[in-house]
């Protein structure tokens, strides 16, 4: 356990001391929150479009923020792998499980903090715009988003393990685009119907957004909350397991 704690602590310090982590993990989601609130203010009420109203936007932005956690995980892992640092660490008694836990845990902690900051900002915006936001719902939403955080961190670990620090961010940006577009963050995917809706439902991202929004709205029905949470949890378990196995295989290959 001491090995995981030490490695987790090192990774947290490395991330917190990198100015880019503040820009991408906190700054960018907050900027999008403000920009989309301004966009919402410009949409006439008659349009009946509520996707950018703060009570719906905040859950989507929380998921959007998690995609950047994936990017940062990939960058951290790929940078460590491309330098001699991991070579040194491979010669210590640390096992592949210690490494994967040490990469995943700090990112989960940062993801929770990011979510809380996003919701605090959302709450302030809700007070300004006069849209009601349920504090308890937001608290539940923070918890409901933990499985999706595991999934995105798992993707980050996977890309960081498989690709170098030049290729991994590029691949992550594909997931960021897919996640935000097909995750129903910027439009109501379920209202589109047809192939697009089916495509959205085949991917896990829309379930992340749906669970976050349902929790904020205190809508704990099976279809709107529990089903998305179950789907995302299952995907998170698969992605985390696959990324851990891939890391172990790559570590073994590095030591061959």
């Amino acid at each position, binding site marked *: 356990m*001491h*090995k995981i*704690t*030490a*490695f987790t*602590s*090192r990774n947290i*310090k*490395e991330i917190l*001391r*990198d100015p880019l982590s503040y820009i991408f993990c906190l700054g960018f989601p907050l900027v999008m929150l403000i920009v989309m609130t301004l966009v919402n203010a410009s949409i006439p009420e008659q349009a009946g479009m509520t996707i950018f109203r703060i009570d719906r936007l905040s859950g989507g932005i929380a998921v959007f923020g998690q995609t950047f956690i994936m990017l940062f995980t990939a960058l951290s892992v790929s940078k460590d792998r491309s*330098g*001699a*640092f991991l*070579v*040194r*660490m*491979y*010669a*210590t*008694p*640390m096992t592949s499980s210690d490494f994967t836990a040490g990469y995943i845990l700090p990112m989960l902690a940062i993801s929770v903090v990011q979510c809380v900051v996003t919701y605090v900002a959302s709450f302030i915006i809700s007070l300004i715009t006069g849209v009601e936001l349920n504090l308890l719902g937001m608290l539940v939403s923070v918890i409901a988003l933990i499985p999706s955080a595991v999934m995105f961190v798992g993707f980050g670990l996977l890309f960081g393990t498989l690709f170098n620090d030049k290729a991994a961010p590029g691949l992550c940006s594909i997931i960021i685009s897919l996640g935000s577009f097909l995750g129903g963050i910027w439009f109501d995917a379920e209202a589109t119907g047809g192939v697009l809706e089916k495509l959205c439902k085949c991917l896990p991202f829309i379930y992340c957004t749906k669970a976050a929004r349902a929790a904020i709205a205190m809508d704990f029905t099976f279809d709107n909350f529990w089903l998305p949470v179950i789907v995302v949890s299952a995907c998170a378990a698969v992605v985390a397991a696959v990324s851990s196995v891939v890391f172990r295989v790559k570590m073994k290959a590095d*030591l*061959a």
Partner: protein
Amino acid sequence: MIAVEAKNLTKKYKTKTAVDSISLSVEAGELFALLGVNGAGKTTTIRMLSCLSVPTAGEAFVNGHSCLSESEHVKAEIGISPQDTAVAENLTVRENLEFIAKVYGFDRAKTISRTAEMIELFNMSEVENTRAKTLSGGWKRKLSIAMALISEPKVLFLDEPTLGLDVLARRELWKAIEALKGKITIILTTHYMEEAEQLSDRIAIMIGGKIAALGTLSELEQLSGQTGLEGAFVAIAERNGGSHA
């Protein structure tokens, strides 16, 4: 007592044989140098001895533990400073040292005391709160070696410890390495003749993945009929068909 032993150690990469059936034994407390030009197989040898690479054939032992079947035991007893300075860039010197101490399971009191010892041993007090990424090459090397030493290893592997350092930084690092002589078994790789001559108890000259000669400086001089390590190295290399491509 034998601290490190290699028996017919071989490493092949597809068609290339990086290390070709080398055998050697290093006594506890000895400072042993693997000397050779780039590509001679020094780093590959050190990687196999420190469980970072699996040999294609042969065996390696550290304090009697097999590097293949008892790698956990071996890893607990060795420290390594790789060729590239392997430090956590955003951590300070002190934090890097404390991090490694914690990885080896040291409690808080021991972590603090060992960190203080390393900072004193390598005269790093002026940079102890400086982040590694802003350190000069010399300081980074010192930190890298201190990180390898903080776990109280019985065997220390130093891969090209002074590569790329200026003459002053190199001399200072030599002093630090010399201070460790006799207290711990050290295996270092180098292609600097002066470094091997100055620091080592025994030297193995590697050419084309093989050990072309092994002995003390005077033994190598006697074997080659030359004076000084450079002359001995060139004579042995020429005799063994070694060239620097």
